[in-house]
């Protein structure tokens, strides 16, 4: 048979494409649930490590229920909505105009103090980068941060998911001394000592580092209305606690007298 006859070439390519398509869609459908479970567990694992709790992927479910006390979605005015947090896809939200965006937020309770965990999403050099950053209950000091990426260069930009890059974020501040929002920047060549708004960049990974800076600024900015409300609320709470302690103290002194 002449293998180069047009009819045969058509027949061969059609058959080949059909076989391949069937094989691939079958695999994809069969494996999808397993893959999604892995991704969901990894997200929980990342949320936990942003507040300093490091667990294996298998234990993520259990610890998530233990440490994450609340999670909800905010509208652009910083008000709670009743949208289901699992329905939010950050990569789609970030493309919407600012006032239509919904912002997911997780709250964790570590040693009796609330931490606010903000999911991040941005772009690096070759593809998306994402992560979680957690703030202390002054809504200013960073409690922890984790980052990850799809396809950054190994040894360079890909290092953003390593401890040496993530750890320096702890204790940084997102507002300056006057209370203006400045976010945190990844500084090429290294941040200055006592710089509350900068961390060391990665040599050779400047575009990824800049991506992290832009992502933090863009994402945190959307939560500002919520932070402001919360800051006032927390301040009032702190004063109330203080007064309560004061009253207790007075009681004790009175009793002693």
């Amino acid at each position, binding site marked *: 048979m002449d*293998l*180069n006859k047009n009819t*045969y*070439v058509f027949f*061969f*390519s059609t058959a*080949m*494409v059909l076989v*391949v398509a069937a*094989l*691939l869609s079958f*695999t*994809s459908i069969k*494996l999808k649930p*397993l*893959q999604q479970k*892995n991704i969901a567990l*990894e997200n929980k694992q990342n949320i936990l490590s942003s507040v300093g709790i490091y667990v294996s*992927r298998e234990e993520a479910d259990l610890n998530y229920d233990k440490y994450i006390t609340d999670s909800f979605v905010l509208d652009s005015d910083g008000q709670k909505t009743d949208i289901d947090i699992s329905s939010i896809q950050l990569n789609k939200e970030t493309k919407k105009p600012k006032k239509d965006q919904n912002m997911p937020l997780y709250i964790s309770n570590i040693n009796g103090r609330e931490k606010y965990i903000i999911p991040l999403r941005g772009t690096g050099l*070759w*593809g998306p980068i994402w992560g979680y950053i957690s703030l202390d209950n002054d809504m200013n000091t960073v409690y922890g941060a984790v980052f990850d990426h*799809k*396809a950054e*260069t*190994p*040894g*360079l930009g890909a290092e953003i998911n390593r401890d040496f890059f993530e750890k320096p974020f702890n204790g940084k501040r997102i507002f300056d001394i006057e209370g203006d929002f400045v976010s945190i920047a990844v500084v090429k060549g290294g941040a200055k000592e006592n710089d509350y708004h900068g961390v060391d960049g990665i*040599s*050779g990974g400047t575009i990824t580092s800049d991506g992290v800076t832009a992502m933090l600024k863009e994402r945190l900015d959307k939560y500002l209305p919520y932070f402001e409300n919360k800051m006032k609320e927390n301040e009032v709470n702190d004063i109330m606690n203080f007064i309560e302690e004061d009253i207790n103290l007075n009681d004790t002194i009175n009793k002693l007298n």
Partner: protein
Amino acid sequence: MNQKKEALFSKKNKKLITDPLDDNNPITVQVLGICSALAITVQLKPAVVMSFSVLFVLSVANVVVSLLRKFIPSRIRIIVFLVVIATLVILVDEVLKAYIFDVSKELSVFVGLIITNCIIMGRLEAFALGNPPWKSFLDGIGNSFGYAWILIAVAFFRELLGSGTLYGYPVLEKLGIYNIGYENNGMMILPPMALVTVGLIIWVQRIRNKKLIEPK
């Protein structure tokens, strides 16, 4: 069958595995697959993972094409190769994502790179299309090993000199080399140094193996 049956590991078949390691190495002699040798030799781990993936894809693709060799129309053979390679690569990727999630994260972008690896295309065209499945399989294994050892050798030097670690383990720090004023060479992690390292390996190889030197 009046043909004399060849032993599974006859001298000729063994040569299919040993040749690509030295005399006919895909990277240092044929100078194929340079793109991936450049991109993923910054650290040992991705290089090792990449080597295993290429081993799987190349040996299976070789067998598949060899089985189909009497049916593939030569006018569209390159497209057929591409489809076979891409299918295998996607299958590997899907299975890894479902069962060995951590490895799949490590591989990420390199999975795509396998499709464009010229060594695979080259072996399908030059060998599998004209040889029976078993020989093609051995050829695939041999060439993958030839590719792998260069990749791992380059990654070894680049990670050790560039980051001071091996497979993520801080060797130089543990040895206390930094205390006497040593510093990592940042240039080693940049792509051009992969080419220089491959060049040095080629140089050493030709000093050792005189057969490779072209007559003047």
